[in-house]
């Protein structure tokens, strides 16, 4: 998995990658018709992809892979692990940390709206008894959302708070799908708890 073995050079945005007559611009590169040259648009390593034998155009494609390109990116339908940063009256915002089993390389923000917290009685959801800042939640990406954040949902049994800290500072133990208990003080706090574990 070492990228150094492939001896590719580091390119910066604006660097000339080659002539348009010899190369096709792939991801991370672009072709300027005035000059007939292919330039890089990202900072990263350039790689050449050989042309497929079936296509009529036999130019290889040049691609630039940025440093964050090998990190995971949340796609609609993927399960993500996120940490709740802010809880407001009608939504909670969370920092996405992992997509599936892989961690992300750059910051992605997600929003869990009041109607996406659970599947039943969605207009009576109290955000403060579902999440608190600092909770780790497992959520499903609903859509790419708006320019600021992905839309996430915890409206399934296996989605919701996976790990949370109590007011006393201890990691709480889940008791039901709505409650978690602090082992130090015995206080019960309300969360939307995820059903973790195998079949039973």
């Amino acid at each position, binding site marked *: 998995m070492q990228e150094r073995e492939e001896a590719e050079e580091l390119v910066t945005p604006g660097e000339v990658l080659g002539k348009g007559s010899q190369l096709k611009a792939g991801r991370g590169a672009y072709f300027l018709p005035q000059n007939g040259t292919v330039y890089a648009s990202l900072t990263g390593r350039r790689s050449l992809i050989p042309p497929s034998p079936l296509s009529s155009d036999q130019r290889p494609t040049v691609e630039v892979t940025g440093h964050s390109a090998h990190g995971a990116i949340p796609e609609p339908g993927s399960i993500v692990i996120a940490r709740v940063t802010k*809880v407001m009256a009608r939504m909670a915002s969370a920092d996405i940390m992992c997509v599936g089993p892989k961690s992300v390389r750059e910051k992605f923000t997600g929003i869990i709206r009041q109607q996406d917290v659970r599947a039943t009685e969605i207009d009576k959801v109290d955000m403060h008894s579902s999440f608190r*800042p600092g909770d780790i939640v497992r959520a499903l990406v609903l859509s790419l959302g708006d320019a600021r954040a992905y839309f996430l949902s915890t409206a399934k049994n296996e989605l919701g708070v996976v790990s949370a800290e109590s007011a*006393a500072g201890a990691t709480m133990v889940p008791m039901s799908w709505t409650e978690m208990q602090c082992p130090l003080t015995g206080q019960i706090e309300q969360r939307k708890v995820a059903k973790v574990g195998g079949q039973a």
Partner: protein
Amino acid sequence: MEDNTPASFVDQLVVPGDVVLDLSKMGNQTIKLGGGLHQDCDAITVTKAGRLRFSKPNKYWVESSQKRYVPCVEDTVLGIVVDSKADNFLVDIKGPALAFLPVLAFEGGTRRNIPKFEAGTLLYVRVVKANTGMNPELSCTDASGKAAEFGPLKDGYMFESSTGLSRMLLSSPTCPVLEALGKKLSFEIAVGLNGRVWVNASSPSTVILVANAIMNSESLSVVQQKIMVDKLLQRIQ
């Protein structure tokens, strides 16, 4: 010298770090802890300096007086409008975060008759939701939906006080300062638990006199308050 029975700490001044209750020695009772107390396994320690209070059957809390207000549910406070957004007014209640007052939280409030408050309007409001980390939510109606004196306060003069003085002004039976002032002067007063007091009267000198009397009365005993009010009233009559 150490007397570990809980009665010894009640109504005493306590400072952060004092262990006031030991649950292992108290038998099987349920105790309700209010503000300023923190449970550490079996010991109850004080986290705010003040006086420890106890109310039957099982409530303990620390009463302290500060300039900064911590929002609590069902408190009546005086807020100042800072901004208005589509759904809420942003109101400053001297707490850690701005509070939201929903545009429809008025008696008979509908989308058609939304009140227009400018920045700087003084409001008498009730705290509906106050969770840590979230902005508090306010309302201009009481629990049953009636207006009940909530809403904007016109004219008058607003000054700031500590939270302890606000609680004393609102205590029943009537606080001695207000009783003594009320016998000779007529004025209108609104006290917010967040450390703001609003006074209105027909003449400015009355307003100033009432405001000064209240500000001076914080650390005085009942008799001293009456003497102070009498002296102030003699000066103008």
